[in-house]
């Protein structure tokens, strides 16, 4: 399954994405909102659901939710409220989740995706705020489960898309764009491994050309970006097989098993859920004022798709560069633009950032911020290359040194001894030595063999440890070999 072309079926995919907001404290109490603390060490009577406790809304969580809505062009509710979603589960100590039912904070809006020259928008149904549940841990081979409530009460955005997604690749793209937008907004770190971004997929298939919505399945437990496409690939192929062999799709929840790369039905005692939503009487409603929206709008940064467009239209970058630069890390944007301000060759800056700076980030597994390179320093380095003070090759070495300790570029070049040889006499000496050592090559050169010249240049560069200016070396070779 999976690899055959299936021209007759069209997948219809909608995503429900949960994003933990990076507030200092939890949604309804003052416990720290932090990952990785010892079990149950970030809890208090409120998030433990102790009798008599009451929730109080974290105002920053509301602002963050509105920022997300503004970014995707949603309608921001002027009146919104919280509701209780009732169900029993050990990681939900009150046995109801404070969520939003009929008045979500944001509705409508869309996530713009770009593939090649085409822009496709995935419409959103809604974005609402709720509290996260804790974690149940099922220790292998034990008759009981363990409950850790540190995560309980973490502010959570639920972002629900329309079933507008048509391919697994598009789903992955949608998820990447959502994530990058959250990073740009600075409201979540969207780390799938730590669970701060989680994704459930609703999938159905229909004969191509049909516009019916068919029975769908829901895939849960996709906890890595890499798994989204593979889970969908598997599930689409499975549904096609079922349909083509005359079967029916059963509406059900399926779990993705990354080890076996398949989705499995969650059998077990499935109970029809009746969440008995009703308005949360412990919380007053929220009225969003126009002035608050204006204030939040003024805090909106350039969004990934706007930045991408600016990189193409203002800085003249190729689409590929604009994509890569805008999708890596929001800190790249001001970094890049500051560099260009100081060294006005955007494409050269882009090459350096993509090829060298990103590579250093990858090797060190750090963000741009942690990497600690200032845009001014990179511009200084590019200027040095431009002025032939250091070869492009050696400049990489200089960059690495700068990352270890930030100093003026000229100092590093001097310290490494990789400054370009400006003394003509040294170059002439090195060329003469190369010619003397390789008389037969010199003969070839005179006979017009291109390779011979390159070989001699290489010999000279080797002897000067890359510090000679290649065009100067060529000129001197031609002069001393008597080709002029």
């Amino acid at each position, binding site marked *: 399954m999976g690899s055959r072309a299936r021209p007759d079926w069209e997948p219809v995919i909608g995503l429900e994405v949960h994003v933990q907001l990076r507030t200092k404290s939890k949604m309804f109490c003052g416990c720290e909102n932090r990952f990785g603390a010892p079990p149950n060490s970030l809890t208090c009577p409120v998030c433990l659901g102790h*009798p*008599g406790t*009451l929730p109080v809304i974290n105002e920053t969580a509301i602002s963050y939710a509105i920022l997300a809505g503004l970014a995707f062009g949603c309608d921001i509710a002027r009146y919104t409220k919280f509701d209780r979603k009732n169900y*029993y589960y050990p990681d939900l100590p*009150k046995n109801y989740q404070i969520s939003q039912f009929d008045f979500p904070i944001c509705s409508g809006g869309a996530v713009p995706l770009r593939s090649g020259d085409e822009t496709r928008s995935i419409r959103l149904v809604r974005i609402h705020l709720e509290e996260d549940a804790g974690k149940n841990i099922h220790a292998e081979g034990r008759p009981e489960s363990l409950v850790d*409530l540190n995560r309980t009460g973490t502010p959570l955005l639920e972002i629900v898309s329309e079933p507008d997604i048509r391919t697994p690749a598009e789903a992955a793209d949608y998820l990447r764009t959502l994530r990058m937008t959250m990073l740009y907004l600075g409201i979540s770190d969207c780390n799938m491994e730590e669970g701060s971004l989680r994704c459930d997929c609703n999938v159905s298939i229909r004969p191509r050309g049909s516009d019916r919505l068919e029975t769908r399945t829901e895939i849960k437990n996709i906890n890595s970006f890499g798994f989204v496409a593979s889970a969908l690939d598997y599930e689409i192929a499975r549904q096609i097989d079922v349909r083509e062999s005359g079967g029916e799709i059963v509406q059900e929840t399926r779990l993705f098993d990354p080890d076996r790369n398949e989705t499995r039905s969650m059998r077990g005692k499935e109970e029809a859920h009746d969440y*008995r939503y*009703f308005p949360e*009487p*412990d919380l007053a409603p929220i009225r969003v004022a126009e002035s608050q929206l204006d204030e939040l709008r003024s805090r909106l940064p350039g969004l990934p798709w706007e930045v991408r467009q600016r990189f193409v239209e203002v800085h003249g970058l190729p689409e590929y560069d604009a994509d890569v630069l805008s999708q890596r890390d929001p800190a790249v944007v001001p970094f890049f633009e500051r560099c260009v301000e100081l060294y006005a060759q955007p494409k050269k800056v882009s090459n350096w950032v993509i090829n060298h700076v990103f590579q250093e980030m990858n090797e060190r597994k750090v963000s741009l911020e942690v990497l600690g390179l200032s845009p001014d320093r990179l511009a200084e380095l590019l200027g040095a290359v431009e002025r032939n003070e250091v070869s492009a090759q050696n400049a990489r070495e200089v960059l690495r040194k700068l990352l270890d300790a930030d100093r003026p570029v000229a100092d590093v070049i001097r310290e490494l001894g990789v400054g370009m040889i400006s003394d003509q006499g040294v170059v002439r000496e090195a060329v003469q030595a190369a010619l003397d050592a390789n008389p037969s090559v010199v003969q070839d050169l005179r006979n017009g063999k291109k390779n011979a010249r390159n070989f001699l240049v290489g010999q000279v560069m080797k002897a000067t440890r890359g510090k000679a200016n290649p065009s100067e070396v060529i000129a001197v070779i031609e002069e001393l070999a008597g080709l002029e």
Partner: protein
Amino acid sequence: MTSAASIRDRIRDGSVSARRVTERVLAAVDRVNPDLHAYLEIFHDSALASADDVDRRLAAGDDPGPLAGVPFSVKANITSLEGESTAGSKILRGYRAPYASTVVRRLQEAGAILVGKTNLDEFGMGSSTENSGVGPTRNPWDTDRVPGGSSGGAAAAAAAIPGVIHLGSDTGGSIRQPCSYCGVTGLKPTYGRVSRYGLLAFASSLDQIGPVAGSAEDCALALGQIAGRDPLDSTSADVPVPDYLSELGKGVEGLRLGIPREYFVDAIDAEVRERVMEAVETLRGLGVEVEKVSLPHTEYANPTYVIISAAEASSNLARYDGVHFGHRTARADDLVDMYSRSRGEGFGAEVKRRIMVGTFVLSSGYYDAFYLKAMKVRRLIRRDFERAFEQVDAILCPTSPVTAFPLGSRLDDPLKLYAVDILTVPANLAAIPGISFPCGRTREGLPVGAQVLGRPFEDSVVLRFAHAYQTETDHHRERPPVSADVEES
């Protein structure tokens, strides 16, 4: 006659020590409690330690707080660091709250001394205190009768030992109705007037903590300390807190009092009606203008209350599941079984009934017909009061249609028990303040309570009516057969 206000004054001026008062209160409680079972816990050690602390501060010339040395109790559905906070339920046996309620914290910071926790119908669900998971409280006027409920422990204790302030909670009359049955004064403040943080929720949109005491003056004394915005309760109102004690001095002359005809229907006991109408005449004599008003949706209030309170309760009580605190069954096949058995074993019959009703009215397919409908009728009931309060400053009616009934007499049929709430639930639905105060007794000698309802956040107005009545009459000074004095004899 002993009052909390006089105890406060005498401790302040040094005529008695806080320790002496506390010892006397504890001795009085020890004397009456075997007959009444009003207190579930009595904090001898911590109360005396707190009293000593007050005396030390006084001796050192430090401000010991506005209620220094005043004894108080709280209903067992209000958390305190002292003792257990069980809400009278077996499901919370042994539960020690890791935090104190805002009201307890505020009273303790004001220097008041927590002497114990009082009995109640489990989670406040009931009108007789017979639904307590640890046995009923008895009425000090007749120990074969109920004290009313759910704050029956508080009302019985207040009747038996004057001078102590009790905090109860009122969801549909749970402060006012037992006060009526026990001949004491109790205020259900405006919804949002007092923080609910630390009140084990029954129905969040109706619950309110309020004082139960021997007089309106003592209620005013307590309210002044517990009222006001609490950052831990989003539903606590940011409305200035007046000096309730000095408000009392304003009297009632010229105030308009409405008598709603819908509250004087056939279901009201004839003697109750007589006593209440006598109270109206007394107030008229004080210069109150009495007018007839109409609250046309009154008959719908109780079914509306039953739906809304049950719905909220079904969700509020979901947390008692045997996982994080409280009772867990000894035998369970799996998780769902563990939940169901723990709850089945831990909750009493009335609580189970209300959870079932609440789950039903919220469930898919029935929500609109029941819950949504009830929220709409709630609006109509609120409007009734808004219109009436355009005409009058307050409304007077009986607190309960009947007087204290014999233990066991209304247990067979839940509707019989719900019927005693019909005059108190409208104030909870309308979020307005209501006070009950004694206005005489029946020929059998049982107390009758009159109720005054006021506009939202005009708690001082209903207190003024009760206080004016009490300066004119002595019904609140009458003492039941089971009683004990705090005063030196």
